[in-house]
């Protein structure tokens, strides 16, 4: 029984990480209608920036805040300088561009900080509240941070004018423009937010998986699975999806199919959802006027 609980707890932690990544993916999807394959590498890069700041002697929470700001600005700049010129390019061009960004970030991080695995500090106390290693403070912290982030985003999109403008810009750019929304800047804002969310995800993941340029490669696929399960257009759904994938992955891997097929399982989820319920468990089916 304790073993089962431990597996679930460990699954929830991985789930929280997938949820953060999924949230970043959803963010860009909601605000620009694209899937950003470089989401994981952007998060990794931001985590390195946080690491460098902490190494320079800046206290954790200040470095945390600074990193979010830097990531936000970085995301904004990427949209302004790299994606804006491609605004009317076919989707395929964008996909290539995202993949290029992925390998560029990976290579630059390796060049700047080397590929040696690095330890990344956790802001939460060491040890576990239960006393027998069921769940650590860091694991609880990761889950809490994910929940807070989701809350803030929900409020932002539902109850602020800026959030509304962003949704409008993504769903119907032409009408939004006529209503006076600066559509192009809304897209940039979406990228900034996604990068900021990614940086938080990276800083939460790194103490568990250790910091190296390939830290997010494996995680991104599970993040996709999470986002798709919940519905790629629904932040809340993506978070739930992330947790579901994390826990299922552990339980299925431990009790049913063995550890070898965990990744396959995630991919089956992706394919299964796309075939059976493309909008995800919580997504609304998009009806477009033609």
């Amino acid at each position, binding site marked *: 029984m304790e073993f089962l609980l431990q597996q679930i707890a460990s699954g929830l932690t*991985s789930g929280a990480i997938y949820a953060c990544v999924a949230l970043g993916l959803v963010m860009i999807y909601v605000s620009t209608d694209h899937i950003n394959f470089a989401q994981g590498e952007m998060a990794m890069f931001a985590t390195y920036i946080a690491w460098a700041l902490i190494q320079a002697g800046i206290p954790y929470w200040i470095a945390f805040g600074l990193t979010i700001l830097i990531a936000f600005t970085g995301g904004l700049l990427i949209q302004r300088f790299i994606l804006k010129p491609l605004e009317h390019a076919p989707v395929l061009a964008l996909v290539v561009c995202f993949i290029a960004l992925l390998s560029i970030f990976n290579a630059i991080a390796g060049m700047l900080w*080397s590929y040696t*695995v690095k330890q990344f500090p956790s802001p939460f106390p060491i040890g576990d509240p239960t006393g027998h290693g069921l769940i650590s403070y860091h694991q609880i912290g990761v889950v809490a941070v994910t929940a807070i982030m989701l809350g803030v985003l929900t409020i932002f999109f539902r109850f602020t004018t800026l959030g509304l403008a962003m949704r409008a810009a993504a769903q119907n750019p032409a009408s939004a423009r006529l209503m006076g929304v600066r559509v192009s800047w809304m897209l940039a804002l979406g990228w900034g937010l996604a990068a900021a969310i990614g940086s938080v995800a990276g800083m939460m993941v790194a103490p568990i998986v250790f910091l190296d340029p390939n830290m997010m490669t494996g995680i991104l696929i599970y993040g996709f699975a999470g986002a798709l399960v919940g519905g790629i257009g629904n932040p809340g759904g993506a978070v739930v999806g992330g947790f579901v994938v994390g826990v299922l992955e552990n339980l299925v891997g431990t009790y049913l199919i063995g550890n070898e097929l965990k*990744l396959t399982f995630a991919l089956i989820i992706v394919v299964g959802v796309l075939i059976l319920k493309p909008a995800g468990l919580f997504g609304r089916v998009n009806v477009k006027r033609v």
Partner: protein
Amino acid sequence: MTMKLRRRDALLLAGGTLVTSRGARAEAKYGPGASDTEIKIGNTMPYSGNASAYGVVGRAQAAYFRMVNEQGGVNGRKINFLSLDDGYSPPKTVELVRQLVERDQVLLLFSTLGTACNTAIHKYVNQKKVPHILIASGASKWGNPKQFPWSMGWQPDYHTEGLIYAKHALATVKDPKIGILRQNDDMGVDYLDGFMEGLKAGLGKDYEKSVVAAVTYEVTDPTVDSQVLQLKNSGANVFYNVTTPKFAAQAIKKSAEIGWKPAQYLVNVSASIGAVIRPAGFENSQGIITAAYLKDITDPRWHGAPDYLEWKAWMEKWNPTANLIESANVSGYIGAIVMTRILKNCGDDLTRENVMHQTASMKDWEVPMLLPGIKANTSPTDYFPLQSVNLARIDGEHWTLFGDLMTAGS
């Protein structure tokens, strides 16, 4: 024509001293990739991709050959080190090695990295009769001169290492219940086979019962937390940790977090203090055992040793951007030293046959940065240059050696 050459080779090989005597350049013999001025060496490395941490090895080698060239080269010939990025992807290795052999016409392949990558080119290079030497992988299959006379490894092989851990575990742990975590690939299987052989030798028929859990992970897995929980749950009191650096650090940290304290054997592949033990936390790593053959560069005990000082001076002058606590810089350095020595011994007979002959003629070679007493030995029937290791244990912030040198036989 070819017949004649072959016969002459045989004669020269038979009269060993003739080969090494430095004749006039006019008498020099050249295979592909060698000339009066240049020796072409081919290599593949993961400079990008998942295993790019190992790229350090290639950069150290390139730095060493740069030094050799600036100091006049090998017997007056410059080394042209063609090191290509295969991203640790076997199909890519095949493509690049074909390019090196057929287009660039290299004399030999040196220190191509990765078990799977080398497996992919194993047959090809032996068909083409290209020396494939000092392979940067510890798989035991590189020591098979009968079937693959053109391939030879360098470091102590995984099989032997695994066997030594099993022997030690059986000798020191009462009622051993073994839990195994291993990477699901060739390397993992080689380490496992050696270990099981050791168990069989010690326990007899029922040896498999001593393994209470054996779990695997894929390099694409984000963490191995779930696997470590499974091992703890199995009640194992011995943990055979067959992982690559990132996963090793994760496993060590996770087992400490959940309060699992077995006797732990960590494979040499992940024995780096800088890349594994420090990130995992020294407090979590006390007592972990590995089999070492290199001097631990983070251990102050060696900091006065002449070979350490020489290495450090070399690093500062020729490889200044590299990390002084990264042991891959030592692997690269000594690999290049041995390669240079082989080429020097080839003299003016730079044919592929002679390269292989010289590689298979190491007699008690002393190589810098190896642990005291470990020497390289090869012969036409022994393709395992290094076969001795010394067990070491994490004590404080370093590996502390204990016991005597161990070899496969002992």
